[in-house]
């Protein structure tokens, strides 16, 4: 095992709003090695995006409090001053966003925007930078790259814009790319192209990839490790195949059971998670998922579970002993009822 490229330790982000303090990210730890890929999944408001933005200092403001550490190549991104962080941003760690139309400047040619990104970090003659920009557009699969440098963003389709964004992100050969919902705005066929492109670039360039998404399918296709977030915390972390074949946390079970399947028998009814996520201003005591969890008992409403290592280098945050949770999933995966699973989870009384 090599040293981690980025090690996030106990990162918390809270926003001071008129309604109270919103704890968007609440003590999150993860790490990624060079060339690895990590998927962060969660629903709206789970803190997955805020976590990513905070690493690059994009949530810094008077009303934001960030604590914890994020060690990137020996220096802490959280305590770093703005000037040094600017040198990391784009060069060490690059980020791409959901909506490629609003992340490209509509008035400037695509090529000029990529050239700008190159010249910000290293003084490069225009001609050299332009050749490099064309090379990058070619690398991300845009046909006739040198001619397309002179196109405006509106002349590109959604998929091409996202490719251009990726080209720009790659311009300074970052060691880590954070992709925040990179394919949510795209059609499935284009999504498949972009996911394959990200995967290929990661392998060819040995660039680590953090992919933030709400789509479990996207994670399954691109990530090696997966962290599931709920109400600002990681509730489960596992290698991708393990997570989908033996999920350990009741929230992950709920997510997997609520999505319709593309193969196998059709269920009569989907099995949604009742209720909705808790307020991040007044987090309930005990486990944040307890009020929606079919297996919660009195203790879950009092004691806050910690993310603890279980078998095979996996982690999950749940008070139920993990052996019992392991035993409950196969029946649930086959469409079994929560009442039956509860007997397995809670053991004989």
């Amino acid at each position, binding site marked *: 095992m090599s040293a981690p490229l980025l090690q996030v330790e106990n990162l918390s982000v809270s926003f001071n709003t008129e309604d109270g303090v919103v704890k968007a990210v609440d003590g999150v730890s993860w790490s990624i090695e060079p060339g690895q890929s990590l998927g962060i999944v969660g*629903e*709206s408001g789970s803190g997955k995006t805020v976590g990513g933005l905070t690493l690059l200092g994009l949530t810094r403001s008077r009303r934001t409090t960030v604590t914890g550490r994020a060690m990137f190549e020996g220096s802490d991104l959280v305590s770093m001053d703005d000037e040094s962080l600017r040198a990391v941003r784009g060069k060490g760690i690059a980020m791409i966003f959901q909506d490629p139309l609003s992340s490209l400047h509509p008035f400037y040619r695509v090529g000029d925007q990529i050239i700008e990104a190159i010249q910000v970090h290293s003084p490069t003659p225009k001609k050299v930078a332009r050749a490099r920009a064309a090379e990058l557009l070619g690398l991300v699969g845009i046909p006739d790259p040198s001619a397309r440098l002179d196109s405006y963003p509106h002349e590109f*389709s*959604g*998929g*091409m814009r996202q490719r251009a964004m990726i080209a720009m992100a790659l311009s300074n050969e970052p060691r880590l790319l954070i992709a925040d919902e990179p394919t949510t705005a795209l*059609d*499935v*066929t*284009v*999504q*498949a*192209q972009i*996911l*394959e492109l990200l995967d290929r670039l990661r392998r060819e360039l040995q660039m680590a990839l953090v992919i933030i998404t*709400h*789509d*479990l*399918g*996207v*994670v*399954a*296709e691109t990530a090696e490790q997966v962290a599931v977030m709920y109400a600002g915390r990681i509730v489960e972390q596992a290698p*991708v*195949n393990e997570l*989908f*074949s033996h999920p350990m946390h009741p929230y992950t079970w*709920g*997510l*997997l059971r*609520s*999505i*319709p*399947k*593309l*193969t*196998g028998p*059709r*269920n009569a*009814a*989907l*099995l*949604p*998670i009742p209720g*909705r996520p808790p307020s991040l201003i007044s987090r309930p005591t005990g486990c944040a998922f307890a009020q929606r969890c079919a297996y919660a008992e009195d203790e879950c409403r009092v004691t806050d579970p910690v993310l603890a290592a279980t078998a095979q280098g996996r982690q999950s945050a749940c008070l139920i002993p993990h052996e019992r949770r392991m035993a409950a999933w196969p029946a649930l995966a086959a469409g079994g009822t929560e009442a039956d699973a509860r007997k397995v989870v809670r053991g004989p009384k």
Partner: protein
Amino acid sequence: MSEPLLRVTDLVKHFPITRGVVLQRQVGAVRAVDGVSFDVAQGETLGLVGETGCGKSTTARMLARLIDPTSGKIEFDGEDLAGLKGRALKDARRQIQMVFQDPYSSLNPRKRVGSIIEEPLRIHGLLSEGDARRKRVQELMDRVGLNPEHYNRFPHEFSGGQRQRIGVARAIALEPRLLIADEPVSALDVSIQAQILNLLKDLQKDMGLTIIFIAHDLSVVRHMCDRVAVMYLGKIAEIAPNEDLYAHPRHPYTEALLAAVPSPEPGRAGRARALLGGDVPSPANPPAACRFHTRCAYADAICSAEEPLLLQRDGSVAACHHPLSG
């Protein structure tokens, strides 16, 4: 088989492209929907799937007569909607209601939920007494899983899933026979999405609704629909019963769409995939003959010379010169 509730024949919508400010000359047309025909039986759910710009939403809007078709027939219960005007059109619309994609922009933020849901009743002059109408609205709210006491709240006080429930309550207020749901869950989180899909299925069972369900998410469509129509660039590529379409796609485009869906099912991830290259061509200037031939792995000379017809082949109907065998 009895008469279908809805029969669409050769439906066309061309949006003109014009040049000039005062004297607008038409220089072309975006062929959003270009000759679409299908039937929907009473009580059935028909899925319409396809990529952005394939014409699925335009088709839906024509069925509700929110936009006028360029040509073609929309027969609803034996009556052609395409030519209806004024009073007759208003009457027909009572039978056909829509649920929209975005639960934020489809509800008036300055109106109270009660008045949003009762608006269709008011427009159609039903339950003119305030008390009776209010009672009906509260029944509807209860039916879709909202607290009837929240009658006086504004849309912003509700979450995305609850707002979509308001949209559904408004759509079923007139007890329509046909419900057109245009991407009803794509703006919602997965755990909430399942709640709305279950609600739609329940309502269908209780009210005998016929549903046209539009979505880009193929696994949601598989869950909801009895039959599925796949659209590509304004035309139907394939229509088939649900099980057949997913197990044995006939049209190469359907196959490619299915292959592109990322899926968290163990065993499906990491499979070899035939990826579709390129983007959807512009509907203002679609490829000649088979519209899919520019991206199709199986295309040969005939595909760029002759337009394939929608032909029936054991249960599935596909428009392809080289249909895949099951």
